[in-house]
């Protein structure tokens, strides 16, 4: 087993050049789609089946009244306790040896369960293929010791990839260096993500970023309680029926002769 990897995203260094967004499309051969200007530099408005990573643009008023621009590279967080893997009925989504969450596209049946389950709203549906698509942390590149395309493209050093422990250590050191509200996001929930942010602002400042992401309770009840309960209940009932039959016996009609000559009186 290879070491768990973490992609570290230092938002304080991101200039929103969108090199990663383009590099991702190029490496994964994802087409561009015509979009509408909705009054922001951000384009497209959200992650799409053909856009696995997206720089979100956000105007933010600081406490001192000054407005600054926040950029956030959005995309799959590669959760350890991954809701999407939990719900996938076919095993299309799976953990790689790097801890990332990859996908066997041929196994996906387009049921959209992962879309409902993901606390980060990451998987997106492609109606043409009837499959979902999302960032796979460039699994085929990791397999040959290459960094993900987005990491390679980043000109400012906002993106790095490396061993999990080393990256998390680096993240905390950098957050301390930045000071103020700067903090590390990702190592403390869903058993740790394999994409970790250094956020210059508090997490609740960022749009579309859950402050306390977790596998939804409904998903836990469904998959960890009811799923085993289904087999237990059926097994118990079958065993109960058998026991009833051998201890108590069937409820048989009193007059067995009816089948023979009829019961005319």
């Amino acid at each position, binding site marked *: 087993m290879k070491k768990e990897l973490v992609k570290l995203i230092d938002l304080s260094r991101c200039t929103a050049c969108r090199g990663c967004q383009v590099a991702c499309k190029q490496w994964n051969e994802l087409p561009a789609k015509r979009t509408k200007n909705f009054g922001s530099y951000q384009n497209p408005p959200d992650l799409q089946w053909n856009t696995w990573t997206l720089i979100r643009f956000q105007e933010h008023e600081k406490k001192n009244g000054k407005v600054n621009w926040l950029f956030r590279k959005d995309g799959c967080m590669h959760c350890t306790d991954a809701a999407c893997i939990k*719900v996938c*009925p*076919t*095993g299309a989504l799976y953990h790689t040896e790097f801890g990332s969450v990859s996908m066997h596209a041929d*196994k996906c*049946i*387009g*049921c*959209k*369960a992962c*879309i*409902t*389950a993901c606390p980060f709203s990451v998987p997106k*549906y492609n109606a043409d293929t*009837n499959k979902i698509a999302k960032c796979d942390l460039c699994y085929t590149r990791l397999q040959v010791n290459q960094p993900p395309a987005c990491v390679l493209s980043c000109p400012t050093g906002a993106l790095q990839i490396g061993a999990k422990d080393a990256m998390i250590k680096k993240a905390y050191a950098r957050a301390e260096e930045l000071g103020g509200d700067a903090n590390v996001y990702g190592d403390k929930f869903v058993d740790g993500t394999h994409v970790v942010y250094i956020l210059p602002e508090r997490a609740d400042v960022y749009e579309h970023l859950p402050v306390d992401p977790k596998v*939804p309770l*409904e*998903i836990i*009840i*469904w998959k960890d309680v*009811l*799923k085993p*309960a*289904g*087999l237990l*209940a*059926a097994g*118990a*009932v*079958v065993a109960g*029926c058998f026991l*009833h*039959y051998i201890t*108590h016996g*069937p*409820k*048989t*009609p*009193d*007059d*067995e*002769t*009816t*089948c*023979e*000559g*009829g*019961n*005319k*009186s």
Partner: protein
Amino acid sequence: MKIGMIKATGPFERVVHWCVALSCLLLCFTGMGMMYHSLNGLGTMVGGMANLKTIHNFGGIFFAISLVFTIGMWWKEAGLFSFPEDWQWIIAGGGYLWHVENMPEVGKYNPGQKMFFLVVALFGAIMVASGLIIWFPFSFAVSLVRMMYVLHALGFVIIFAFFFVHLYLVTIGAPGSAPAMFTGWVTKAWVKKQHPKWLKEMEEDGTLVVYGEEKCSKKGRC
């Protein structure tokens, strides 16, 4: 057909019953193929998991239609309890759980069957509603779709377990019941044992149909 058998079900009743039973079983098994990874092989058998889902979804529509007919056909006979005999029957465990000498006499459907009917009707409707919502999740709020997954799984647990009890009772648990589902004719002894009050009602109303005989005259003996 043997002379003296009693007509328990009509052809329409049997067709509807088979439709709802087989589609429910089909949904249980195709659903389990999706729920348990170890049963993904059920998908392979039909050419892939995508086909399994398609069969499940359209089978669901068939089930929904069958369920409407089932409820329309049976709610009066099986959906309403009649007191006090149904209550006494429940206390006596239907004579199934332990031997009871003088079982309270119940009508065409005993309270156990009524409960099974109500569970299928209620959870069947829940399965249809939740199934449709998780089939088209983009038309609904995420929080609702998540709850529907819980309901769909819960309904499965309950329906699947109840189905085995039902299957046991109508086969080896209460011998003589199954012909009601095939030919529609059952023995008089069976009716007397299982549904004595129903037999009396039919005899009194003159609705009793005995094979090889004209319809019973009012208040007449058969």
